[in-house]
């Protein structure tokens, strides 16, 4: 074998062979997928900056036909296998840490609740519950998250709130048998979730926009959200054949004013600790967009390098200016470090409120009852219909009769209600309300609940932390695209949705999650009980035992001397003993008696010792 090694062909020939093979493989099969990487940067008037990365892969095969999922090129095989095995038609997974502040930042391109949220539409088949249970297990392995905790105790079938986002027939989407929705409000998102997410990208994390994703900086941000969205889209304008779209999004919000002496200056170097040095050669679209609507008004800022061109985005009721960078133009001679420099320090001003936003909180006190209140604000001058969905865990027993919707003191009757009560340890409470939000008003939804006792094995190891209630989902349709940045339903890329001629914009927003304490037993109780019980036994039983088993002899109280008298008699003895010889005989008798007493006392003390030993 050593001789074989000596006769090996040189490195050059091996390289040539590889090259030939790679070229050969390219001619086999025409790839019918395309990939785009986009970055959308939007500074907010509150001083924060949002970076929204979107990696879109569109593959011209139908997800309805799993046998067409072969010859993977840009679409990740690990995800494709999961989708075909578990008969998935649409999948939406978001992993978020932080709360998106709608009042200050408007609407994000993808709204996500804190924690993990997963909703899936399945192909029509029987046994969807079992498929869902298997799917969450597979996804938990794929994304390194505890998605396997999304079991029947936290899964609901939303009837109106989570219709398919892609192509679907009306008959199919009206049937909520095939949709499952679940959240894990407590789930932590860290580098271990970013790593498998990055592995799904065709160019990986070493080149292209994904090379900016420095976990140490991203997880230091104000808000970060990972998203994986799979749906069916039209292949072309005729829309006779479907294609499968995979959209991977990462939204990060930073607060640059804390570092830059009050100015909202941001750059790739300061936000990601890296500059953009390459672009993904597999991508068709490689662009960066910066929202420069407020560039000329206060606060003024300038971008460096100068953008390739500036788009005017027109969406019903909203005009924005978007600076566009084609990444390829800016990589030479040195890497791209996109910078924004502000002239003045940030001044805090009242930003314009978005059309609809919501707040939710727990009310009440104590560990027996409580209530939940949700305030939905409508700042538009027109009424709008809203669908409000809540999922409450079974151990917070909701009183449906206490549900009230009020607007300015007047009660509102909901147009439709879908309320499915919980089953202990099996299903959660599911509530969907459809009602009208009046113009320029606040609508308050309240209900009360009672806290249940859990069995002692059902408490998590850190039971005193409390239990989480997932965020409520508010869905509505806006007539104006005020502060609206989501992509339109019929397109895939951000740049395709900048100018949109539609007049209605679907909005989904999530409220805060709630943290509720349940009556929790004291888990240090067994130790305390043992201590207490042993003390009681020792004192009570011991004393009783002494009382019942000891022999008591009476002693003459007059002969018993107090301490002072004893001391006096001791000194008297010393003084009198050399003088009173004839008295000595008399004293011997009482001393004998004392001896007898002392002997009996010794016996008693021995008995006592004996008792204590036993």
């Amino acid at each position, binding site marked *: 074998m050593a001789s074989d090694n000596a006769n090996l062909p040189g490195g050059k020939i091996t390289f040539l062979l590889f090259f030939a093979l790679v070229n050969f493989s390219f001619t086999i099969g025409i790839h019918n997928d395309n990939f785009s990487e986009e970055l959308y940067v939007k500074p907010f008037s509150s001083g924060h900056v949002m970076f929204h990365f979107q990696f879109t892969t569109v593959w011209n095969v139908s997800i309805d036909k799993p046998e067409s999922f072969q010859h993977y090129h840009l679409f990740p095989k690990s995800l494709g296998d999961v989708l075909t095995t578990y008969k998935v038609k649409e999948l939406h997974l978001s992993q978020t840490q932080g709360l998106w502040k709608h009042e200050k930042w408007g609407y994000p391109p993808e709204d996500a609740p804190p924690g993990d949220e997963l909703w899936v539409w399945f192909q029509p088949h029987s046994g969807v519950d079992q498929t869902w249970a298997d799917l969450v297990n597979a996804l938990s392995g794929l994304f390194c998250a505890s998605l396997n905790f999304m079991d029947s105790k936290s899964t609901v079938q939303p009837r109106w709130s989570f219709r398919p986002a892609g192509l679907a027939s009306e008959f199919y*989407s009206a049937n909520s048998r095939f949709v499952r929705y679940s959240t894990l409000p407590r789930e*932590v998102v860290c580098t271990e979730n970013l790593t498998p997410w990055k592995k799904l990208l065709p160019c990986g994390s070493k080149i292209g926009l994904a090379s900016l994703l420095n976990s140490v900086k991203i997880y230091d941000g104000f808000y970060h959200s990972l998203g994986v969205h799979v749906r069916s889209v039209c292949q072309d304008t005729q829309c006779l054949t479907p294609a499968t779209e995979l959209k991977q999004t990462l939204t990060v919000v930073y607060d640059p004013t804390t570092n830059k002496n009050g100015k909202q200056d941001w750059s790739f170097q300061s936000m990601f600790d890296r500059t953009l040095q390459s672009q993904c050669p597999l991508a068709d679209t490689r662009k960066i967009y910066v929202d420069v609507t407020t560039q000329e008004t206060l606060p003024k800022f300038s971008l460096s390098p100068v953008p390739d061109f500036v788009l005017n985005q027109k969406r019903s009721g909203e005009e924005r200016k978007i600076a566009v960078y084609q990444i390829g133009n800016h990589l030479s001679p040195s890497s791209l470090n996109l910078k924004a420099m502000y002239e003045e320090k940030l001044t805090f001003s009242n930003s314009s409120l978005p059309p609809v936003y919501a707040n939710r909180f727990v009310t009440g006190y104590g560990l027996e009852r409580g209530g939940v209140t949700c305030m939905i604000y409508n700042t538009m001058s027109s009424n709008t219909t809203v669908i409000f969905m809540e999922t409450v865990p079974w151990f917070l027993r909701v009183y449906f009769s206490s549900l009230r919707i009020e607007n300015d003191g007047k009660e509102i009757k909901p147009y439709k209600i879908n309320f499915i009560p919980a089953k202990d340890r099996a299903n959660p409470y599911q509530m969907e309300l459809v009602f009208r939000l009046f113009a320029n008003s606040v609508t308050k939804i309240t209900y009360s609940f009672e806290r249940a006792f859990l069995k002692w094995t059902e408490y998590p190891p850190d039971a005193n932390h409390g239990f989480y209630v997932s965020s409520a989902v508010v869905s509505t349709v806006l007539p104006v695209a005020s502060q609206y940045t989501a992509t339109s339903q019929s397109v895939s890329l951000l740049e395709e949705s900048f100018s949109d001629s539609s007049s209605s914009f679907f909005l989904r927003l999530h409220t805060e999650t709630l943290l509720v304490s349940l009556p929790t037993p004291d888990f240090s109780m067994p130790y305390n009980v043992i201590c207490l019980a042993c003390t009681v036994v020792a004192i009570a039983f011991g004393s009783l035992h002494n009382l019942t088993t000891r022999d008591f002899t009476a002693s003459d109280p007059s002969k018993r001397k107090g301490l002072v008298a004893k001391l006096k008699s001791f000194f008297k003895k010393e003084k009198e003993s050399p003088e009173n010889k004839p008295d000595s005989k008399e004293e011997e008798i009482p001393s004998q008696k004392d001896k007898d007493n002392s002997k009996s006392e010794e016996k008693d003390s021995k008995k006592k010792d004996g008792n204590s030993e036993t």
Partner: protein
Amino acid sequence: MAAPMVNFYFQLIAFAFLHQCTGTSPEEFFKSGHTNNWAVLVDTSRFWFNYRHVANVLSIYRSCKRLGIPDSRIILMVADDMACNPRNPRPATVFNNANNQINVYGDDVEVDYRGYEVTVENFIRVLTGRLPPSTPRSKRLLSDEHSNVLVYMTGHGGDGFLKFQDAEEISNVELADAFEQMWQKRRYHEVFFMIDTCQAESMFQKFYSPNILAVASSKVGEDSLSHHVDPSIGVYVIDRYTYYALEFLETVTPGSKKTMGQFLEVCPKYQCISTVAKRTDLFRRDVNKVLLTDFFGSVRNVELLPDSIHLQNATLHTHSEDSSDVKSDKPLSYAQQFPMPV
């Protein structure tokens, strides 16, 4: 047409490995008897003041990855999140040393069992392989009779037990029985069991299966101590035994000839304050002749074939049917997202 293609690929791969082999004979490759390496790394402690246990297990994880065991062969169980904990002043990092600043959490970590999933039941199921059918591959220990498995456990322990997350315990008898199940099912070739807890020796005293080499950070009756505090974090960042073990492992490269005997001598009493205990009676080979990389590294041994093999084309379709044409008569439409009248 595809079969000669596959054959060509095979020959090319064989060439590539030939090119990279170190020039030793194939008999030496298989002397140790194992063909693949697995690692099961468990941290059983929750809460911020147990930061050091997470740093312990991540240090060993980092060493295993550095020496060649891939993520697909490592099962990492971390009971609490320290890196993205709100109390962590440097998010997405876990340091094992206040000064040296090695970020043991790294940039490409994959945790298989996290948070509430780290339970005694899951741990025993992983070892014995008795997992529900829907468990994904990354959460399974798919070892065979030629696998060397490294099992590392850290947390709070006592005489005969190890505490999982303040809620339950695993006893040394259960652990010994789990290893016996593994032996009877031929799920390991050799096991190296490392444990860093108080009274750690008690955990391996009940082992009775062959081919287990065990080391513990303290004897029965002794406490394992932690190393130092990081003032900015406020808690101890690493335990003594793992700190000195990591120091030793940082000097090891994938091709190193250091032996397990040297590793078992790491952390003498003046450094560790507790006495490091070891158990070599169940291990068949001489500890001083076993390479460290037999357990911490990964074997990528290749058998060299001078002949070519013709494989049947069993899976590839040469021509895919026009399956992508699901042409419908009517144009498809997007689902209405808001089903209520606006």
